[in-house]
């Protein structure tokens, strides 16, 4: 139960996974974020995974009130927050209980012994104090009376008990900083800035942090610090960004690049709300972040703003997308540019609102009445949410049609280093606005290549015209119930989306370029899939990864790539939705499926086992 019997050597590790867990009120998210930022500043690559309960502030000490933040730091590129935890910081028994199974034997667990009171132990569902049982034997357990040491360290500054209590996470962080030889400056600066007007709070947190660091340093029982060297990353200026912020920023960049103003019509919903929050901050860039009365008003006002000439987007999660279906159909009929962001979460219905899933793919494809094709694309990492938000805007505006951008709770809340881009280095976006025409304006006249129509915005003299949801006559856009015209227009709307394939990059394979097994994925599972495939590839397997960011239309070379492999496995966090799309497009291939629907990302080990099995069998 103590580390007396374990003899760890001072290790230099390539990658380490650290998980901070405690009560929702214990500040674990902040702790995790600080550790990540400090590590990134040292040049580590990082990937993070916050995991919190759906209650705002669940009763203290309960298992469902446990909030966690996991970070994976590495000296080579890291692509997932990691499967197995190397260091677990558990602030109470409930946190220990719910997280122990993620810690392999031999790994380190730090616990706050002060929190192992009878009451807390019972609340966590333990019969007896787990620290006193043999179940802790396999681990390196570091027991520290964190709460009391924290209180002790700040007792003289005159903070009330509950505020003082709240500094204990910094004590824990201090300990971990020492373990990984991290400097304290970044976090100290953070507090100084954040609580400018609360000197007591600054003081308490800094003291706790230092006390934790010093405690760890002087404590005999503590294993020697780990060393994680800086990762080899492309040179440049970086910042840590999470997927939702990256999404918001991608849209702002697209607005600036295209010379349009950014409009967001949205209704809060987990885990998409942070995009709204972020955009609401940026009035200075002309961003109008309108919180509507519901999802329908959110998307419909977006159509209005698009009609009026803005770069118009709406953001939501699964249930919200369901409500927006009818209006997306209107935008398709009106052929208006707009982006619908769906940050996927666990379904069906309210489902698992704070968990991740990829089960809205078919809804994005088909969740509307009639033949109503939309462009569907998906981001695959926290940082490339920036790129795909940008690309979604570009495609919408240049092809005059709605684009659905899928992300998910996992990449939306996860963070990673982002090599800062500038507007200048982003591709051009040419909007199709017209300011005048010879003769009558024909709103449904099209660019012969993209089949996009033009964008005539109210306020432009001479281009007055009406659009709407009834079938349109070709060219004029007048209402038409003519049978042939309807068939013609239906095909044009489809063709317009199909031709987007000419404007998107071809699919690239990572790992083996041909061979035994092609792993197919899409969206937010990239990190785990890549890590698994890459490590098997490096081990000599003929395995490659084809990860899709473009779902509708599919990249033109998809079939050609599928042909190069003996076996194909489609991996998704759903029951096989992309598998269904692929099968219907390319029925000539046989596909294996690997699906997980637990509200959690894939673990790398699980994937590698699965792939090995497929490679071995048959």
């Amino acid at each position, binding site marked *: 139960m103590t580390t007396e019997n374990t003899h760890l050597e001072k290790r230099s590790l390539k990658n380490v996974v650290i998980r901070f867990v405690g009560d929702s009120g214990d500040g674990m998210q902040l702790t995790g974020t600080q550790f990540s930022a400090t590590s990134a500043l040292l040049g580590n690559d990082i990937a993070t995974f916050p995991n919190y309960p759906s209650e705002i502030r669940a009763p203290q000490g309960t298992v469902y009130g446990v909030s966690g933040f996991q970070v994976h730091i590495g000296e080579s590129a890291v692509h997932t927050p990691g499967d197995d935890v190397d260091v677990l910081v558990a602030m109470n028994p409930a946190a220990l209980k719910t997280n122990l199974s993620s810690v392999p034997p031999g790994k380190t667990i730090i616990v706050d012994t002060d929190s192992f009171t009878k009451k807390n132990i019972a609340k966590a569902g333990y019969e007896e104090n787990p620290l006193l049982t043999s179940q802790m034997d396999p681990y390196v357990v570091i027991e520290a009376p964190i709460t009391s040491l924290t209180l002790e360290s700040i007792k003289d500054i005159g903070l009330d008990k509950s505020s003082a209590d709240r500094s204990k996470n910094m004590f824990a962080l201090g300990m971990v900083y020492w373990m990984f030889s991290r400097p304290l400056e970044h976090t100290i600066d953070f507090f100084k800035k954040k609580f400018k007007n609360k000197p007591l709070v600054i003081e308490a947190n800094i003291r706790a942090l230092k006390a934790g660091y010093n405690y760890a340093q002087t404590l005999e029982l503590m294993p020697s610090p780990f060393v994680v060297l800086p990762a080899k990353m492309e040179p440049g200026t970086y910042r840590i960004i999470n997927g939702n912020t990256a999404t918001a*920023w991608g849209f702002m960049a697209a607005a600036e690049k295209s010379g349009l103003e950014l409009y967001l019509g949205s209704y809060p919903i987990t885990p998409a709300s942070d995009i709204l929050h972020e955009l609401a901050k940026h009035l200075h860039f002309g961003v109008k972040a309108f919180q509507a009365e519901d999802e329908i008003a959110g998307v419909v006002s977006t159509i209005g703003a698009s009609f009026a000439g803005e770069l118009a987007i709406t953001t939501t999660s699964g249930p919200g997308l369901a409500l927006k279906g009818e209006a997306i159909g209107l935008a398709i009929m009106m052929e208006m540019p707009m982006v619908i962001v769906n940050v996927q979460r666990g379904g069906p219905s309210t489902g698992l609102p704070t968990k991740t899933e990829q089960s809205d793919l078919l809804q994005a494809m088909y969740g509307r009445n009639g033949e109503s094709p939309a462009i569907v694309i998906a981001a695959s990492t926290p940082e490339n949410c920036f790129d795909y938000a940008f690309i979604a805007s570009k495609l919408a505006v240049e092809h005059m049609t709605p684009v659905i951008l899928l992300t998910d709770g996992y990449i939306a809340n996860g963070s990673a280093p982002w090599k800062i881009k*500038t507007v200048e280095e982003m591709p051009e976006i040419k909007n199709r606005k017209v300011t005048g025409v010879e003769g009558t304006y024909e709103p449904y006249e099209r660019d012969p290549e993209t089949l996009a129509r033009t964008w005539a915005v109210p306020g432009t003299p001479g281009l007055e015209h009406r659009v709407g949801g009834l079938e349109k006559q070709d060219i004029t856009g007048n209402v038409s119930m003519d049978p042939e015209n309807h068939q013609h227009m239906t095909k044009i709307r489809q063709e317009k989306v199909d031709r987007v394939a000419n404007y998107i990059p071809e699919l690239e394979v990572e790992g083996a370029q041909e061979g035994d097994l092609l792993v197919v994925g899409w969206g937010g599972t990239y990190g785990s899939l890549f890590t698994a495939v890459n490590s098997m590839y490096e081990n000599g397997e003929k395995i490659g990864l084809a990860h899709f960011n473009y779902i509708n239309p599919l990249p033109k070379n998809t079939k050609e790539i599928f042909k190069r492999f003996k076996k194909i496995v489609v991996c998704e966090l759903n029951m096989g939705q992309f598998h269904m799309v692929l099968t219907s497009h390319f029925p000539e291939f046989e596909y294996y499926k690997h699906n997980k629907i637990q509200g959690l990302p894939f673990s790398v080990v699980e994937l590698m086992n699965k792939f090995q099995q497929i490679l071995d069998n048959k």
Partner: protein
Amino acid sequence: MTDTNKPVYTFKDFASDQEVRWCPGCDDYVVLRSIQKALPLMNRKKEDFVFVSGIGCSSRFPYYMDTYGIHGIHGRAAALATGIKLANHDLSVWIATGDGDSLAIGGNHFIHLIRRNIDVNLILFNNEIYGLTKGQFSPTSLIGQKTKSSPFGNIQPPFHPGELAIGSGSKFFARVAGGDTKLQQRIFVEAEKFEGAAIIEVMQNCVIFNDGAYDKYTDKAVKSDAQLRVEHGKPMIFGKENNKGLVLEGLKLKVVTIGENGVTEGDILVHNAIDPDPTLHLMLARLEMPIVVGVIRAVPGKTVDELCNLRLAETRAKSPFKSVNDLFASGETYEVK
């Protein structure tokens, strides 16, 4: 916002080339003509008008106007209009909508448009029936009304648009008979001048599915006794002989006759449309006989679209960030070499 150097239009400039397809005799024709006549009086550029609608007979309105327009989906005109106005505050945005469109499926957007006081003009074609879907009761249909979906008579009590609007915070509410083009034109012009959500209820006769719904107010024979036209600053006098008026008795309105029982013109209530207190406006909106027409309430106030734009402009002017590049490079960044 109105400019000064405006071209001069006639009503023909606002008629599109699409054939009008309402039933012969429908009041919608009157309103269409009223709008086409009122727009040239507004001193605005043609290209700045946008007509937005949902679905319903009345919602075909935008097709007949030679302006920018959207024929939207059922119930969502207010949300479309909100997006348009937030995007471009300088446009003159009009909503043509039915009692089903705005009070049934669109009820939520209707009350929120009003709450936000978005600077649009909403013409509510209240025919107390669903026209386009061929005659089901609507949220303004009367108790007992027999329709396709209430063959034994409707049992759902109606909304009163004026009360619902003012209950939602409405700052501008007007009412007018479907055939009264003169008053319609005047109200439309006032609505356009008003900054905020102007709600105009038209007592619109549907000749096919609910013919005669407003006869007790609009029949030539009873009209002048049954309609009280209010005007800001004027006493509330009406009647064939222009000798009836409204007075307040406790918390109730009462019809009196000038010259009878010692009542003089001076006793008659004077209409104050701009009083922020809605108490009297609500009483007027609720009055059943005579029914009150004209602009019942027109209280100046802030509009969310204007506030949004103002704040944007201010923040922008003050901000050190001129490009997103500045944002991206700000705060915590670090170098990798």
